[in-house]
């Protein structure tokens, strides 16, 4: 509860990339997020961890204003997110779109530029150049003209990441970018995250593979409807905290921390 306290007292002039205060969300009448408050430091890679149905995706969607919240405040660099949309990049879950859509990889990445174009302007040569560069950064430049249904799952995920890069944001939300990807893509993604961090960008990632948390993230946010713990990975990602977050499923967790091959379930 001390967390809530610090946030609300500092709230008036916080310039943190993301400050969430008292966020609550319910589907029908079932609470999915209850009074979640935290503040993310600039240039950090933050992993959002929790069991299925803990509200991890919901947290992202509510922060982005995609679903209505019951109450609470979301500030991006000190202002309501609605005024800061151009600073935010978003990578939805890969399964959330239809990959049979008639379009190619470059075109999907170009969609990342739409937010910078206003109501009527169409993407131009400059946007195309940016999109190609972003595809190149995820090692997909050779596939620019490829129909998206002909890409593998990992390649599709990389196209999604390239699209987020094209958004040229300062704060990124990524919903399970590592879900169901091949080793090459996983490596590409983590390289990219490191590069974003080097550029001073802040990335919040919903993550399932407990075995890699310590290697990938500066901070972790443990969530199970309520915020369980939040802080630097070394201090926060502990047996005790995980037990609190995952409740009765600790037996699996014990093993997972000893055997790095374990990975949690996926999907919300």
């Amino acid at each position, binding site marked *: 509860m001390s967390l809530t306290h610090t946030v609300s007292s500092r709230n008036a002039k916080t310039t943190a990339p993301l400050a969430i205060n008292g966020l609550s969300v319910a589907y*029908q009448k079932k609470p999915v997020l209850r009074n979640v408050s935290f503040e993310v430091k600039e240039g950090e890679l933050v992993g959002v961890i929790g069991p299925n149905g803990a509200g991890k995706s919901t947290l992202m*969607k509510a922060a*982005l*204003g*995609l679903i209505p919240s019951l109450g609470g405040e979301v500030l991006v660099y000190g202002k309501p997110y*609605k005024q800061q*949309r151009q600073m*935010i990049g*978003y990578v*939805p879950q890969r399964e*959330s*779109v*239809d990959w049979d*859509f*008639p*379009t*190619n990889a470059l075109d*999907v990445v170009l*969609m990342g530029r*739409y*937010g910078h*174009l206003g*109501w*009527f302007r*169409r*993407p131009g040569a400059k946007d195309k150049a940016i999109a190609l560069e972003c595809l190149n950064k995820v090692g997909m430049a050779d596939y620019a003209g490829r*129909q998206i249904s002909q890409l593998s799952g990992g390649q599709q995920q990389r196209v999604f990441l390239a*699209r987020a890069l094209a*958004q040229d944001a300062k704060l990124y939300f990524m919903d399970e970018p590592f879900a169901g990807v091949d080793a090459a893509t996983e490596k590409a993604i983590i390289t990219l995250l490191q590069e974003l961090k080097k550029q001073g960008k802040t990335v919040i990632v919903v993550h399932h593979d407990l075995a890699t948390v310590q290697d990938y993230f500066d901070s972790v946010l443990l969530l199970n409807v309520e915020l369980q713990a939040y802080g630097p990975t070394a201090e926060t990602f502990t047996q005790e905290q995980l037990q609190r977050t995952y409740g009765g499923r600790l037996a699996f967790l014990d093993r997972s921390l000893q055997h790095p091959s374990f990975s949690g379930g996926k999907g919300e």
Partner: protein
Amino acid sequence: MSDFWILLTGALVASCCGVLGVFLVLRKMAMIGDAISHSVMPGIVVAFLLSGSRDSLLMMFAALICGLLTTFLIQMFQQSGIQADASIGVVFTALFAIGVVLVSLYARQVHLDQDAILYGEIAYVHWNIWEVGGINMGPKAVWLLGFTLLVILTVIGLFYKQFKLCAFDPALAAAIGIPVAVFHYLLMGLVSMATVSSFESVGAILVVGLLIIPASTAYLLTDQLGVMIGLSIAVGIASTFLGYGAAVLLDASIAGCMVCAASLLFVAAFLFSPSHGIVIKKLRLRQLAR
């Protein structure tokens, strides 16, 4: 001359429907198009009773209201936990039934029969002429459809990137500040307009065929959205020409023949499309096996 006007009317209907159909198919909302085309009926009837004319702007407006109401009701029922397909079925049959009751109640007082609404009468299109100061301006239906097509092309042209992103990834669209709901209702409003402009020619039932079938055919033939829209229009126009030819030869329902032609073109694409056709795929497999 009548042939010319019938074909022009058909081509305009096919173009209006072809463009919108692509977005309905891609958003997996083909059945919502079906629902709207039926539930504009009470709007048409009420507007007709009020104005006594069949081509008033009032009719267009009433249909628009009905179309948006349909969209809104379907969404409301879905959000309160009713199955998506069930809520579509409930809403459009209820509204359509109200229309049928209204027509049967007032059919004697007004010239508006159920057959005309359901099946259209494209063969009589050239009898209903628009005259300005005694000058023959051509059939009213052509003007109405031309206006509708202009509106559709303008709106889709201006907001192409928004419609595209809302169809492919509504979550990202909302995240970057595109008002997804506005574009949803805008699309459904356009579908209502297209339906009410077309119903007089091809009827409320067969207009669905021209909304969905050419767009589905185009989907099988290309991997690019822009090309898909062009192909959808082309397939629709080809269907109206082939259908009219067949109707003249067989002395059968023109609108019926047009939708049959569209279906035949769909089957042809399904079998022989270079990328998706099942016959082509089989042939390719056989070549690989050799």
